[in-house]
């Protein structure tokens, strides 16, 4: 007697592989969109606008703030959105979850957010992404709350796009700053 043919398992495997491929495709789409938008920014103003747009559209937050890091270590607010993010508030490197994350030059996601275990001096705090270009720390953005209908941020699902935005944003801001300082006719008309 021959063994029964198993036709269901290969189909289930293929379905799982297709679902995984579609999820990866979605993630790649986010990376491509974020990279292209930041790569096309040639002024500081355009870079900040692109960062804001990406946080709303790709990451999914309308409560965030963008900061620059001053030479004295102050983290100074430059732009933001939302009831926490629009408040001009300054922090210091090494202090609090934001200051520590920025000083560590690595993406930080407060995955305990749901349990209310993470906060920034009483404010909700979901993530911090430093803008690092080589050995230069230019700034950061902090997300206070994500949109209510999206899943909470996690390093596993969102780490790659957050890291990419951090690096590309740093490059865009550096280019904007460089072009703003250099007013030579050859560079402007090139």
């Amino acid at each position: 007697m021959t063994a029964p043919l198993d036709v269901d398992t290969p189909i289930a495997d293929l379905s799982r592989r297709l679902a995984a491929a579609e999820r990866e495709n979605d993630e790649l789409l986010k990376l491509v969109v974020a990279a292209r938008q930041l790569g096309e920014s040639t002024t500081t103003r355009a870079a900040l606008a692109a960062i804001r747009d990406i946080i709303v559209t790709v990451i999914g937050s309308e409560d965030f703030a963008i900061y620059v890091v001053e030479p004295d270590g102050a983290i100074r607010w430059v732009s933001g959105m939302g009831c926490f993010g629009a408040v001009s508030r300054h922090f210091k490197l090494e202090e609090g979850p934001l200051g520590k994350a920025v000083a560590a030059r690595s993406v930080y996601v407060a995955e305990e957010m749901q349990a209310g275990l993470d906060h920034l001096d009483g404010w909700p705090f979901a993530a911090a992404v430093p803008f690092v270009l080589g050995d230069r720390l230019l700034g950061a953005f902090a997300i206070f709350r994500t949109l209510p209908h999206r899943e909470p941020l996690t390093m596993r699902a969102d780490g790659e796009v957050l890291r990419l935005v951090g690096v590309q944003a740093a490059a865009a801001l550096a280019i904007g700053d460089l072009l703003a300082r250099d007013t030579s006719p050859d560079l402007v008309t090139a």
Partner: protein
Amino acid sequence: MARKKILVVDDSPTSLLWQQLILRSEPFDVITATDGDEGVRVAQAEQPDLVLLDVVMPRMNGFDACRAMRSDPGLRDIPIFLVTTRSEMNNVTAGYESGCTEFVTKPIDKVELLAKIHSYLPGGGAA
């Protein structure tokens, strides 16, 4: 069979790019506008098969643009999807009252968007 034409109206360059990349992975022709007023004019000129319409836009928001399209006899029956970051009930109610067909929330999920589009454009845009 002619390819289906989809109009994307959004003032966010990032959102426009994202939707274009999603739609161009399927055989759709994509046209764009960057505010509600331009969206209505382009819709009247191009007669798309479906419209993806952002809600918060300068000059004319998505609700008003949707109402304007619905008042045009040539656009009365085309599917209009409102694309928004807000999923609250009052926003959804306002959207349906303006005449939209469907809601899509940002960040846009590619699989969800294409499934909804295909439910209104059966057969997709395959030539």
